[in-house]
C-alpha cells in the first residue's frame, strides 16, 4: 500500500473517531437539505416518491454494502492482475 492511500485511510479513521468527541446527530446531509427546503418553501410537497424503498434500515445497509463490496472486488481483481503481470514480466 502506498503513502497516499495510508494518508487517506488515516484521515478516514480520524473522521470516524471525531464522532466520539464532537456532538451531533450524524445523520445524512441530504436530510438537512430537506429541512432547509422545508424552511424556504414550507408549502412544497414532493410530487414523486421512490418506486421502491428498502423495507428496513438493515436491507438498505445490505444493499449499500453490496454496492461497496462489488466495487471493491472489481478494483481488487484488476489491480491484483496488473501487479502480477508486472512481477511476471520483471522475472
Amino acid at each position, binding site marked *: *500500500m*502506498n*503513502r*497516499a*492511500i*495510508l*494518508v*487517506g*485511510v488515516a*484521515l*478516514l479513521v480520524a*473522521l*470516524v473517531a*471525531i*464522532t466520539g468527541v*464532537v*456532538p*451531533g*446527530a*450524524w*445523520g*445524512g*446531509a*441530504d436530510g*438537512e*437539505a*430537506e429541512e*432547509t*427546503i422545508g424552511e*424556504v*418553501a414550507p408549502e*412544497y410537497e*414532493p*410530487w*414523486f*416518491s*421512490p*418506486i*421502491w*424503498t*428498502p423495507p428496513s434500515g438493515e436491507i*438498505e445497509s445490505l*444493499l*449499500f*454494502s453490496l*454496492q*461497496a463490496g*462489488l*466495487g*471493491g*472486488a*472489481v*478494483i481488487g481483481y*484488476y*489491480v491484483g*492482475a*496488473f*501487479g502480477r*503481470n*508486472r512481477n511476471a514480466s520483471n522475472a
Partner: protein
Amino acid sequence: MHIMEGFLPPFWAAAWYLVAAPVVAFGAYRTAKMVREDSSRIALVAIAGAFVFVFSALKIPSVTGSTSHPTGTGVAVVLFGPAVTAFLSTIVLLYQSLLLAHGGISTLGANVAAMGIVGPFVGWLTYRFTRRYAGLEGSTFAATVVTNWVTYLVTSAQLAMAFPAGGGLEGVGSAMAGFAAVFAVTQVPIGLVEGAIAAGLIGYLVEVKADVRTRLGVPA
C-alpha cells in the same frame, strides 16, 4: 448527497434531464468506442467505475455532526475525462435511485448533471492545469477534491434555483448560500479522504501498468 426523489419541481427535473442526456449519450458512445478499439481498456474502465461504486456507497462522518458521501468520480476524471465519467456516474445513480431510494428517478437528470458532468468537468480542468506544475499524484488529489466540492456546489445551486429565498438572482444567491452551508463544510474533509485515496490508486496504476503511463503522459 443526491437530490431526493420528488424534491425538484417537474420543470427543473425536466430541464436537468435535457442538460444531462446528451452528455451521457456522448459519454456512452466514447466509452464504447474506446473499448472497441482496445478491449484491454475495459479493465481500466471497470476500475474507474468500481471506484465510483465504492465511494458513493460510503457515508462518511465529517466534522460538522452530519454525514455525507464522497462522489468517487476522481479516478474516472483523471483516466478518461468528463464524458466517460458522466456515463459511469449515471450507472451508479440509477442503482442508488432504484434499489436504495437514494436520489431519485425524477431527480436523476439533476444529480447526473452535478455528480457526473459539472463537477467532473471542473475537476478535469483542474487536473489539466495543475498537471503542468505538479506531479501526477498531486494533480489527481487536487482534481478529486475539486470534483467532489464542485459537485456539491452544483447541487446547492440546483436546489437554490428551484427554491429561491426571494425574487431574482438575489433570492437564488441567498438560498444557495443556505444550501451550500449545509454541504460545503461537511464536504471538505470528505473530499480530502477521497482525494488521497484516488491519488494513491492512480499512483499505483502508473507504477504497474504501461498503458496508464502512456495515457497520463508519465515517462517510464
